[in-house]
């Protein structure tokens, strides 16, 4: 396979930091340029230019101009949540292969417009997810083996132990909005929107279906920054599927000190023959010694929650040392991108295509409706 040209939309302090590193590391792809819409704010523009400088490629103002470049085969799309649906649709209409940030769009309706544009153009697409992690693949293999018998339930937790938690000391009660419209803040983000997509995506993939209804709760449990910006730091959902299968998921940011590694990342499968657990940090060594335990340094002013690789490094956030998992979590992003390039090379369909990724977006929209109403909501 010839090396495919990758156009990166969005730059530093987005997930493009991970996408670009993955494409740059694989010999089957190379970065052609960084681009974004022409009317973005100066901060975003400066961060995009910084990534162009890092990779020694041009920065292109305007999506149409960038998509007209014949050297572009793939678009790695990390535009801000509020506008990513229209950017993704434009890329699909231009016939570009798409590697998409998660979730697809700010709500299920807009995500459907992305999926429709991709279906119309026939381009290959993949949204970043955890389906290529070794623990998720082990869970899928368990389901497919049939050893648990009929699948009764799937329970998933994807919680990030990042950021200086313990700052929200009042009630955790949150008045949720049924249709959120703002997602992008420097100090916080909607954590169930951004992280809940992982466990929900895993549940739908493992059950191999979409739920019919959900109940959900969101909260302001850990961070005063999230409360100040009216963004949840935690959410939980219970999903009901045709045939009676139940799935539950938690997603959120719980604070750096609340877990000995990157946070609870776990799938529990319940079948009529028993229960099995698949944990990102199992099997592992646990190491205790006289060496000083790593401490969370003062937060980076541009990224107090430790969301981005560049600002984590700049702030000097150390790697926690107690757990030494046998499977290395630093491979999760590269593995997903390698799996995507494998599909392009072999002509096979990505597991987490935009079509499949629409399910989690629809569930997340129902989660906000349920958290706002306090009732079960249909998908």
């Amino acid at each position, binding site marked *: 396979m010839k090396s495919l040209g990758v156009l990166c939309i969005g730059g530093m302090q987005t997930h493009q930091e991970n996408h670009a590193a993955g494409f740059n590391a694989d010999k089957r792809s190379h970065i052609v340029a960084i681009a974004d819409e022409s009317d973005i704010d100066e901060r975003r523009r400066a961060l995009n230019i910084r990534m162009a400088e890092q990779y020694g490629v041009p920065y292109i103002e305007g999506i149409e101009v960038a998509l007209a470049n014949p050297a572009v085969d793939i678009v790695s799309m990390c535009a801000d949540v509020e506008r990513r649906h229209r950017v993704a649709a434009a890329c699909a209409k231009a016939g570009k292969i798409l590697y998409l940030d998660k979730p697809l769009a700010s709500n299920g309706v807009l995500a459907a417009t992305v999926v429709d544009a991709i279906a119309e153009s026939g381009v290959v697409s993949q949204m970043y997810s955890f389906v290529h992690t070794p623990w998720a693949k082990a869970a899928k293999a368990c389901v497919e083996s049939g050893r648990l018998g009929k699948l009764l339930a799937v329970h998933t*937790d994807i919680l990030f132990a990042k950021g200086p*938690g313990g700052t929200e000391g009042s009630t*955790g009660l*949150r008045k949720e909005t049924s249709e959120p419209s703002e997602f992008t803040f420097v100090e916080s983000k909607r954590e169930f929107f951004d992280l809940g997509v992982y466990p929900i995506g895993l549940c739908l993939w493992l059950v191999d279906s979409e739920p019919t209804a959900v109940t959900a709760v969101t*909260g302001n449990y*850990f961070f005063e920054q999230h409360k100040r910006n009216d963004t949840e730091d935690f959410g939980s959902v219970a999903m009901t599927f045709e045939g009676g299968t139940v799935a539950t998921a938690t997603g959120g940011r719980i604070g750096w000190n609340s877990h000995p590694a990157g946070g609870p990342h776990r799938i529990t499968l*319940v079948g009529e023959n028993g229960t099995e657990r698949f944990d990102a940090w199992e099997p592992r060594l646990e190491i205790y010694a006289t060496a000083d335990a790593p401490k969370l340094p003062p937060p980076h002013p541009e990224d107090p929650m430790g969301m981005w690789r560049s600002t984590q490094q700049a702030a000097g956030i150390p790697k926690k040392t107690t757990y030494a998992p046998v499977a290395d979590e630093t491979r999760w992003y590269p593995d997903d991108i390698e799996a995507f390039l494998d599909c392009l090379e072999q002509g096979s369909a990505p597991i987490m295509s935009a079509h499949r990724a629409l399910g989690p977006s629809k569930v997340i929209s129902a989660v906000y409706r349920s958290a706002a109403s306090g009732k079960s909501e249909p998908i």
Partner: protein
Amino acid sequence: MPNPSSRATYLDRLSQTIVTAVSNQRIGIPRFVRFLDRLDSETTVDDSLNSALELCNQIFGGEPVRQQRGGDPDTHETLHVAWQDGASALISAGPSGTNSGIGSAPEIMILGSSGSIFFDGTTSGSPTVEQVVQR
């Protein structure tokens, strides 16, 4: 844990340990409980959910204001519960089974405003608890 009394003793001791840790403010304000019970053939789903809910009531200091139930009462059920102050819980119970290899005790995750508690279950330790209780 082969018999119901052994399981009850074990869970009672486990609950006391958890409530002590929470009331000593080891994790700040308790916010969320994930309780995943793996049942032996002697324990019903309903009994498990009720005892887990009682533990959550102790942790959060009152009765829930919202409770939704899903699944099948004969095999596996999940309760999604919320309290007045915004705390919440997901409580599930299903068969441990012969294939589980991870025993028939619950896994528990409690998230607090400034810390967390994890109990990953165990395949041993029950005899030790019985000795502690008999002392």
